[in-house]
């Protein structure tokens, strides 16, 4: 068994108005897809930002990435280890897909360095992997939401990191594109061996896609386990404070909400 990518110990964090975490500990397994789950306000976005160094934990907390203290990583160094696909994105309307994906190479370059053939290869590869070969010279504004989302993932992929974080990558998409994006994420994990940490708003998609779930209770404590071990009505009530029903069809977990 590989050592975990992230080791989180005694993590505490509070916003000025309210505490969020008080000494939680968990690991994130290497080479797996891990979902962060929880009701609105449970702190899953906060946790996402703590792990990507967009928020600073309180003193005494320890987050290590590959055995090294996360706070000791410089931003540019972190960007070579960890790519983030954010939920909200914007791009200049007339930028081409290829030019946008090329920003994924920024962490690997000094400020005024120009692109090498190695960079170009990484970009082409990322485009190809995300099924965007035909879109490379198209402008971002001509693309549908689902296609744009694949571009943002390709940009993260061009960073060539062993780790990718995704914040609700399917939220604004219709079901066709949701499935495509989820399949792409699984392919990243299975074929390229990327460790994926993801927030999904759909419980069933979390169960379907992920190897590992980290679920936050409203009080800021957490439960961790495989989807099979957590597919349980008691667990769901604890996390979402709602009565949900769990069925199994061909060993596939289906969560639904009787009205």
């Amino acid at each position: 068994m590989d050592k975990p990518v992230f080791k989180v110990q005694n993590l505490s964090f509070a916003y000025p108005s309210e505490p969020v975490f008080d000494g939680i500990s968990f690991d994130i397994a290497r080479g797996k897809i891990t979902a962060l789950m929880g009701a609105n306000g449970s702190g899953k976005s906060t946790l996402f930002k703590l792990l990507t160094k967009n928020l600073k934990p309180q003193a005494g907390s320890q987050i290590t990435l590959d055995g090294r203290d996360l706070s000791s990583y410089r931003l540019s160094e972190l960007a070579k280890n960890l790519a983030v696909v954010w939920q909200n994105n914007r791009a200049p309307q007339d930028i081409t897909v290829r030019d946008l994906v090329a920003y994924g190479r920024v962490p690997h370059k000094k400020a005024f360095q120009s692109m090498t053939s190695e960079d170009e290869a990484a970009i082409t590869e990322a485009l190809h992997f995300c099924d965007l070969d035909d879109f490379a010279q198209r402008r971002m504004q001509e693309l549908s939401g689902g296609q744009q989302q694949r571009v943002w993932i390709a940009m993260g992929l061009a960073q060539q990191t062993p780790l990718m974080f995704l914040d609700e990558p399917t939220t604004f998409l219709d079901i066709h594109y949701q499935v495509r994006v989820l399949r792409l994420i699984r392919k990243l994990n299975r074929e390229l061996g990327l460790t994926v940490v993801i927030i999904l708003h759909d419980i069933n998609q979390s169960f379907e896609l992920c190897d590992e779930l980290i679920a936050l209770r409203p009080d800021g404590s957490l439960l961790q386990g495989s989807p099979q071990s957590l597919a349980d009505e008691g667990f769901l009530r604890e996390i979402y404070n709602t009565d949900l029903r769990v069925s199994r069809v061909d060993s596939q977990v289906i969560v639904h909400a009787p009205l």
Partner: protein
Amino acid sequence: MRKSLITALVFVLTAVLLVGLFFFAVNQGSIQVTFAELLRGLFVDYDPNVAAIYDLRFPRILIAMLGGAALAVAGALFQAVLRNPVADPSIIGISSGAALASVLVVGLFPLLYFSSPLFAIGGGLITFAIVYSLSYQGGLAPMRVILVGIAVNAVMVGLGEGIGVLMSGGASMGGGVSFTGSLAMLTWNDVRLLAYYVTPALLAAALLSGRCNLLGLEDDTVRSLGVNVTLLRVMVSFVAVTLVSLASAVMGVIAFLGLIVPHLARLLVGSDNRVLLPYCALGGAFLMLLADTAGRLIAHPFEINAGILMAIVGGPLFIMLLRSRSNFYG
């Protein structure tokens, strides 16, 4: 590849127009020379006509070009850093803050004339800091920036005019305070002053242009690419404020140039700052020289300030931009 050809054509065409306008502007006025006489007078023999043109017309032409380039590039930088397609440095008060500081310094300490651009930059930076901090509420809503900027601008103009009255010993027409930019009366000293400071600032803008493109993305995204986005913003803002302040210190306030040129430039060459900023420099030089030359000709023998012409043309365009739903940053 077709696109880069069009871009190259647009550059060449604008450059040709600029050169043409330059020679046209040189020859407008009571003294006229032929092109051959001009070259001869400049480089070969002394010619009193050419010498007069050299002393009287060259400074204002060169200043129009340098100042116009500075204003247009600064406008594009402000629009990038504020993510606001209608951010114009004169509307949000940076120009008048800078002009105020430079007028104050030159009025009170005339010996500091050659360092007055530094004070203008100081005035511009303070004004920008005020506008930025007053309009920041968990983000920079474009309209809030504009509204706060208009208020700050009004204060700066008021202070400038008030001080102008005091300095000119109570005469109601404010003395040295030029809040509507004019290029009459400028000398070679002003050209040098502007060139020394504007050239390095334009180079800095060119160096930053690639990084500037990152500002078209969300801050979170830029950060996760390993770039310190706050530092980047500070640097881009500093260069933008510097350019506007220098131009305003020498020419006075020229409204809307920093809005019109980048807007047209985006339509012509796209929004990639590595192309946009150089084109803005070229286009800004052209438009400013056009405004100044037109101002000299329209009501000859009277002169209409370039700043007034820009305001008359720029105002309607600003309203058009406000009304259009288009957003340059998707």
